[in-house]
């Protein structure tokens, strides 16, 4: 009897989670299409997307994140160099560390770490802001004033993410390579100039663009997940907290899964 009840509860929960997942996926796609619509046709509807709003978001998402991005990227570059040299020493192939650092930074670490950082930093801020606006009826106020919340809130954030995430990723590429170079030059007695020359020699444009393409996908994921969770807040300040946490966890999960799929596709 108890087993039957547990099974029923489990099935009901599974059903509810599946339905919610499908609803959120549909809602995300609708948001994506609508934000693209406002970007292209907003002017004709006399509701053009305002550049100052995009710049404001770019400041929050990109410029203000530069200090932490610099620290993280430098540390990751050094960490890869430390690990790489220690591992390659076993085979007496320490000089190959430059190739290892260059490829893993540009293809994998920079886009992934920047994606996770922006999801935690800006994605959570977006979800919390939208959730708070939702419970304070500010979203309703926008709609009754005749301002589309998607045009006013989602599109500027989406555009800013699509510009700033690849920019931050490229910046992180350079800083991480520098971090790797500093450690390598100290450990292997290689000059920074020689390290840079070797890096340029082994890196292909494809390696960098692969990371940048990934960051574009992550930008879309972070924006959509943050807004879907923010717009769905109904239960007061506790709801805002839950939506913020959920948005960060979901963004990071989707980023890692998307990264895995992306890497698989690009390496086959």
């Amino acid at each position, binding site marked *: 009897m108890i087993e039957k009840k547990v099974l029923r509860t489990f099935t009901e929960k599974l059903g509810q989670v599946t339905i919610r997942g499908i609803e959120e996926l549909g809602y995300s796609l609708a948001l994506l299409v609508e934000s693209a619509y406002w970007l292209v046709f907003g002017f004709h509807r006399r*509701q053009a997307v305002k550049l100052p709003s995009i710049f404001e978001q770019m400041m929050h998402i990109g410029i203000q994140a530069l200090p932490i991005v610099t620290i993280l990227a430098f540390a990751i570059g050094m960490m890869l160099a430390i690990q790489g040299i220690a591992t390659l020493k076993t085979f007496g192939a320490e000089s190959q560390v430059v190739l290892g650092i260059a490829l893993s930074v540009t293809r994998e670490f920079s886009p992934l770490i920047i994606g996770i950082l922006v999801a935690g930093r800006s994605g959570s801020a977006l979800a919390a802001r939208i959730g708070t*606006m939702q419970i*304070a*009826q*500010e979203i309703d*106020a926008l*709609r*009754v004033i*005749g301002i589309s919340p998607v045009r006013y809130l989602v599109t500027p954030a989406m555009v800013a993410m699509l510009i700033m995430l690849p920019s931050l990723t490229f910046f992180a590429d350079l800083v991480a390579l520098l971090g790797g170079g500093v450690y390598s030059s100290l450990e292997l007695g290689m000059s920074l100039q020689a390290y840079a020359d070797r890096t340029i020699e082994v890196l292909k444009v494809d390696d960098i663009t692969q990371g940048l393409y990934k960051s574009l996908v992550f930008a879309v994921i972070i924006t959509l997940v943050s807004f879907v969770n923010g717009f769905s807040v109904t239960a007061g300040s506790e709801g805002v907290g839950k939506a913020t946490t959920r948005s960060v966890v979901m963004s990071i999960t989707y980023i890692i899964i998307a990264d895995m799929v992306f890497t698989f596709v690009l390496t086959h």
Partner: protein
Amino acid sequence: MTKQTDTQQHAAIEVEDLVTHYGSTKILDHVDMQVQTGEIMVIMGGSGSGKSTLLRYMLGLHEATSGSIKLLGHDITTISAKEMDELRKNMGVSFQGGALFNSMTVGENVCLPLREHTHLDENTMQIMSRMKLSVVNLGGFEDLMPAQLSGGMIKRAALARAIIMDPKLLFFDEPSAGLDPVAAAELDDLILRIRKALNTTIVVVTHDLDSTFRIADRITVLDKGNILMIGTVDEVRNSDNERIQSLLNREARHVEINADEYLKELTGQKSD
């Protein structure tokens, strides 16, 4: 011209046979009402009567199950999004909590509709927002953030934002909620002054009886999603309807309990 045609021509808001649901629960059940141009219509009822829901549907925030809602002659259940955008320029709304944008100053809040819908230069917008703020006795407060204002001031600032475009229709959701009696009375006077100055059609959703009797031309009484009565203040006061009288006399509702249903509720079983 028949009396009916004459009434329809002057109705700023017409709700016809409106049915709405929240999930599978019916909230509004075949609601019909009209608000004439320049009239102050107060929608009142107890908690859960559907009055706030009716307001949200009039504002076009949800899609009705069936029926029509005409604002200034346009049926908002069928018009295009572009037409709705245009119509919204003639509508002002003051939400229960004010719904001021917390990231903007009071002045920026009031200016927002102008900034989005007009091509006025910055100076003109500033002057207009200061004018509207002084109408609601908030002159000089334009540089403050909403968090620095009291509850009454937030409501008045929200009203300034609602009237910045000189709307033909003005909606209030619980204007006196959370205000002390003096602040509530001041807001009532403000509503009457705006109607007098602009001949605005005003819909107020409230459960505040004092406020209702002070400002209403007519009152719509809602109960459990149905309209109990639409009439003037005197007609409602003198109504012999039991539900209306218990609402006016603040009598507690007597909920009839079905023993079987109550037992099922207690034991967590679902009703048939």
